[in-house]
């Protein structure tokens, strides 16, 4: 994946060599895996070889976690199939481009079971990795360096959004996102963490939300907003937070000032982070680089990352590999994506839901 330098996720040998053992001819781009210290020997399997970038993209199936850039997609052959996080609903231009290239797609984020539950996801890592970064920032900003002081009051986390990510946030927060740290602080009788959870729909009530902000050490946005032009917390309201408070952005919506009204993050003014930098001090120059249409006057410590699961690449890819393995097995056993019956067995139905060719025009 050629994104930021901090993006080190690759599919691990356990998944890749299993594909080869099941009879697939596998081509890995030269250097694949080196980002996390894996060597060609780690991937050694009959039917697997390393090749250049063009060769890797010229196969019947191309598997890559984050969607490649347009120039890489042009290396694919018409009729080939791309397996990646394609995010059809929010990326209409990407969908059109893939169709124009004559490609089939299987969007990993659209692989769902009969009840609509995603089969390839790592929302737990979104919450746990984000919380770990935010609590690390809070440790620095907390008054008097008293983060581990038994005399301090319980830490107060305010979580906006109680959906799938929010549920993991509650669990991560009450455990300091670190079981070892939790055990140590509990043994020392350091008060734990109290999490206030607010539903998104009630955040527009100023009289409801602003008093909560004044009593918040860590503010977390885990919402899925129906309207990305309306912030969950306008930048001006952040003034109510204590000076040491930390903002955590788990929704990772972008800013876009080219549309009217502009698209904004849920916590207005928070810089957009990535795997190269995901913690921002109040005086970080990243705040000043945000588009002019965004109000950033109220600043606190902030944590934001486009790919929170990528903070721990091996753990992330081990999970994705486990989740993806039965999907790939189904593809192989069916004899290819064209032979998959969208009304067939469990994983065939899941693949059917994720096919580009079955998305509405």
């Amino acid at each position: 994946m050629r994104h930021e330098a901090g993006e080190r996720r690759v599919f691990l040998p356990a998944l890749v060599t299993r594909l080869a053992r099941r009879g697939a001819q596998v081509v890995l781009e030269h250097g694949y895996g080196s980002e996390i210290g894996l060597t060609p020997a780690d991937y050694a399997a009959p039917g697997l070889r390393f090749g250049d970038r063009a060769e890797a993209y010229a196969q019947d199936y191309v598997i890559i976690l984050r969607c490649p850039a347009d120039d890489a997609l042009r290396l694919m052959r018409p009729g080939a199939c791309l397996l990646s996080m394609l995010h059809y609903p929010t990326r209409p231009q990407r969908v059109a481009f893939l169709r124009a290239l004559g490609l089939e797609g299987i969007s990993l984020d659209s692989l769902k079971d009969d009840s609509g539950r995603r089969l390839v996801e790592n929302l737990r890592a979104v919450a746990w990795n984000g919380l770990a970064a935010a609590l690390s920032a809070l440790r620095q900003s907390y008054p008097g360096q008293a983060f581990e002081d038994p005399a301090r009051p319980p830490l107060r986390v305010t979580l906006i959004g109680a959906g799938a990510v929010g549920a993991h946030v509650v669990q991560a927060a009450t455990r300091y996102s670190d079981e070892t740290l939790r055990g140590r602080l509990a043994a020392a009788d350091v008060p734990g963490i109290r999490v206030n959870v607010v539903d998104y729909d009630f955040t527009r009530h100023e009289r409801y939300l602003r008093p909560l902000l004044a009593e918040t050490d860590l503010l977390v946005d885990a919402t899925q907003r129906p309207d990305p032009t309306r912030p969950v917390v306008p930048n001006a309201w952040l003034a109510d937070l204590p000076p040491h408070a930390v903002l955590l952005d788990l929704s990772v919506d972008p800013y876009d000032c080219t549309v009217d009204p502009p698209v904004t993050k849920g916590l207005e003014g928070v810089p957009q982070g990535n795997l190269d930098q995901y913690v921002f001090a109040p005086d970080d120059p990243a705040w000043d680089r945000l588009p002019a249409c965004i109000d950033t006057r109220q600043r606190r410590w902030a944590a934001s990352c486009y790919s929170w699961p990528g903070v721990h690449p091996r753990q992330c890819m081990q999970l994705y590999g486990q989740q993806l393995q039965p999907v790939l097995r189904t593809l192989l056993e069916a004899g290819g994506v064209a032979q998959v019956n969208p009304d067939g067995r469990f994983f065939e139905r899941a693949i059917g839901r994720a096919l580009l060719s079955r998305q509405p025009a």
Partner: protein
Amino acid sequence: MTIPRTIGFPRMMKEPGEKRVFLPEFIQFLARAGLTVYIEEGYGSRSGFTFADYHQGEEAIRQAERERIFQQDLVLVLRSPLREEYGLLRPGACLISMLHFPTRPLRVERLRQLGLHAVSLDSLANDISLRLVENMHAVAWNGLEAAFDVLERAWPGLRPPHGGPTRVLILGAGMVGKHAVEAATKLGNVERYQEHLRASGPGSLAITVGRALTRQPERLRELFSQADILVDATQRRDTSRPVVPNAWLDWLPAHAVVTDLAVDPYTLDTNPPVVRGIEGIPQGNLDQYVFSADDPNWDKTVPPSVPSAQRRTVVSCYSWPGIHPEACMRHYAQQLEPLLEPLLAKGYAALSPGGGYFERALYRGTLTAWLKSGEYAARPR
């Protein structure tokens, strides 16, 4: 038994409020899969289903008396039959049910002695140990729905006299606790929530604390004093001690509703004894799951030796998902269908921990796997 050819569905002989049965579409699915399906006479009648609803002209679906139901190759029932009924199964037949192997050693021994095969639905897990047949969502939502129902009767429109949002204090942040948070922020019911939104109601605030804070009474006292609903969603490591001693309930406002989602029993004749997470509250079931502080049935499930002087309204149910039986069983059937496929194709004895995704999950739920596990081997017998 090699490849199963028949399956029996006995009625659940539990409390009258237990109305859960597998739905006609699931029975039809099994018939289409090649099984001859026997359902017990009267199956589903408490929910208004007739045999015709199940049969739908399908010759492979038949009804029979209870003894014959238990004579089939597979016997599927959500809650376990009585241990005395296990003897009705044929040796080599397979019982599929919520069997809870880890906490029911007598049940395990009985199954083993009778030479039965068994699959415990609560032990079916995928490669990352996620349960594949579960309804934690319904545990949390149905419990919170009952709690908000109680409050709404006192506070029409859920507008608390204190003027703020309804405050829900949730103890425990495990699987059930996570669902409880969402249910609490949605007032336990999405339809009620939408109406509340339209009426510009004050909403709710869910407050969760972890284990560190639940050990600090002075901190909890303040939280309790402000709670409109107290939820026990804890998973205790030590079930011999309550999370909330009965005396602490006195800190709650008089109107507060205690919501029991942990549903641990009182079992005082074991060593150490098992007590409930919130001390002194009754254990409900599908016949009665709301107990006012002066309920005459309070003491029926609370042993006299357990302190229970401090009382608030309690909602508690051994089977929260059973509150909405059809939705529950549709959910379970959806989860079960892909899991049954390898069993029907290969038979119990041929299931392998190295098979496909669902076969591996199914194997983990078998009695065979449990008897080979280190956890079973370590038990005194």
